[in-house]
């Protein structure tokens, strides 16, 4: 009874949120089961504001609201530069990829990212490339999902004292339930609601340190010169408000690129473009998405630095070594159950929206791009087997979350670099270059993955001075060069003119 009395507000808000997600999934169950196009891409009939919020909530996860926000505790207010880079890539994604991707995939009747490679390039390597891209998605996504589930389970454990294993089970299988029922319909609509929650939670969270201290003026004065020490034991002084005093700009650039580029290469983000219903919706989403993302990042990315104003020297000495606990500390110190409940619901929303998106991507990749490629199946079989795949994959994710590998954070970051370097040249070239070939796309994928591995395992941590150069930078450049070079060398493999006219238009 004491437990309920202490936590009823948080429990009530989380219960309402979870019930709403499950209801949306159930509501779309029948509609999503009508066909492959319905289940995989919501039949390209989703309004722009829903797709916009879904893109925002899919890209941003608990890692941003807890991990990145907490990181500013050590790096200072200049950590928001990471957010600036992310906003740039959000704009690039919507301006350069969004409308073209929507048009070309509709022309080709493509419903997944790997099948776009197949239909667009139409080469002897297309089928292999499609299956290979699906394999990369399934493998790289696994670590991302485990990382998200682990973060949410720890949050449930620390705030509501739910045992870690039960927390992992609940977060994975509640998300699994509404994803399996409603396919892309429920993923997009729940993502939109989760995106709205995340947007307002970001605004609420940034106000808490100022309210605690007594105003923005007092807060800025208190963090302008702190007596707290860095992880290395040196006094921070005015480092929190001085550009790159506590962190190198090269490191900020590496994280800014490695994570930000996910928006131009990861299937969970790009698949959002498929579902936009018309030009008006597309224009709205192109304007609104950078606003949702940008405002949230302004609020969240420097939040950790502001928390110094709430922390004593002893508390800061602990938090500087445990930056993932900075946001939890802030909520506990503020001490308002309604604020904590609302923020926690927002943090779960951030985790669940990302989980649901990748669950569906994995199911469609395995069935639509691997199994059905070699053993064709009817639409009802495709939908049913996709659902089964999602459930089985969730069991694997759950088991790995219970026994996570030691280096899960590094694996997750590495997976992002693999996506950006291996998928982007094939996508960008496919959308813009008539002369791009399947051979160029296939070999650029291999070159992207290989250079990621070689840089990380062979150079980054062994050659002095290269530690802060993230593998995304060299591997992205290499993959892009390989795409251009091999495409130029294999011009005889360019698809026929009629096919290209269908994709690009006849007057080009």
């Amino acid at each position, binding site marked *: 009874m004491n437990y309920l009395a202490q936590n009823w507000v948080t429990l009530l808000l989380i219960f309402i949120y979870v019930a709403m997600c499950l209801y949306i999934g159930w509501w779309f169950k029948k509609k999503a089961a009508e066909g492959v196009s319905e289940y995989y891409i919501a039949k390209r009939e989703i309004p722009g504001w829903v797709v916009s919020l879904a893109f925002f909530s899919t890209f941003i996860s608990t890692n941003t609201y807890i991990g990145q926000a907490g990181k500013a505790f050590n790096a200072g207010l200049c950590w928001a530069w990471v957010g600036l880079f992310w906003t740039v890539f959000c*704009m690039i994604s919507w301006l350069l990829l969004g409308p073209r991707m929507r048009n070309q995939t509709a022309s080709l009747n493509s419903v997944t990212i790997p099948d776009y490679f197949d239909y667009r390039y139409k080469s002897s390597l297309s089928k292999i490339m499609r299956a290979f891209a699906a394999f990369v998605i399934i493998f790289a996504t696994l670590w991302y999902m485990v990382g998200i589930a682990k973060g949410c389970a720890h949050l449930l454990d620390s705030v509501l004292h739910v045992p870690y294993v039960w927390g992992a089970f609940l977060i994975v299988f509640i998300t699994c339930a509404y994803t399996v029922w409603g396919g892309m319909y429920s993923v997009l609509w729940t993502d939109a609601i989760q995106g709205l929650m995340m947007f307002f939670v970001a605004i609420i969270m940034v106000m808490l340190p100022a309210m605690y201290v007594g105003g923005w003026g007092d807060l800025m004065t208190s963090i302008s010169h702190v007596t707290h020490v860095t992880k290395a034991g040196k006094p921070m002084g005015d480092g929190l*408000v001085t550009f790159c005093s506590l962190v190198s700009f090269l490191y900020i650039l590496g994280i800014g690129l490695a994570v930000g580029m996910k928006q131009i290469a990861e299937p969970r983000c790009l698949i959002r473009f498929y579902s936009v219903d018309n030009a008006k919706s597309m224009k709205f989403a192109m304007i609104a998405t*950078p606003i949702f993302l940008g405002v949230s990042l302004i609020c969240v990315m420097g939040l950790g630095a502001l928390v110094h104003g709430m922390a004593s020297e002893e508390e800061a000495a602990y938090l500087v070594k445990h930056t993932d606990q900075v946001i939890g500390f802030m909520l506990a110190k503020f001490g308002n159950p309604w604020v904590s409940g609302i923020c926690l619901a927002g943090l779960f929303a951030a985790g669940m929206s990302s989980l649901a998106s990748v669950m569906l991507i994995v199911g469609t990749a395995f069935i639509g791009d691997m199994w059905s490629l070699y053993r064709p199946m009817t639409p009802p079989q495709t939908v049913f087997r996709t659902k089964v795949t999602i459930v089985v994959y969730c069991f694997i994710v759950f088991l790995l979350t219970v026994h996570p590998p030691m280096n899960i954070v590094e694996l997750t970051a590495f997976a992002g670099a693999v996506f950006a370097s291996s998928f982007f040249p094939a996508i960008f070239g496919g959308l813009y270059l008539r002369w791009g070939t399947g051979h160029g796309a296939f070999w650029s994928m291999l070159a992207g993955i290989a250079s990621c591995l070689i840089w990380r395992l062979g150079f980054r941590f062994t050659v002095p001075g290269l530690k802060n150069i993230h593998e995304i930078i060299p591997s992205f450049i290499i993959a892009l060069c390989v795409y251009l070079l091999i495409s130029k060398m294999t011009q005889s493999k360019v698809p026929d003119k009629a096919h290209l006219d269908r994709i*690009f238009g006849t007057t080009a």
Partner: protein
Amino acid sequence: MDFLTSVAYWGIAVLVIVNAVIVFRMNVYINKEGDEETEPSKYQPGV
């Protein structure tokens, strides 16, 4: 907060506004699924 640190915050706001202006001036065309008679030449000329 020094100037370069503050750039990150107002820089995001400026980017968002610039993006909105670009999109307002763009002519965005969206075709239907399986639509062979598209008009993408207006929007996506290819290279």
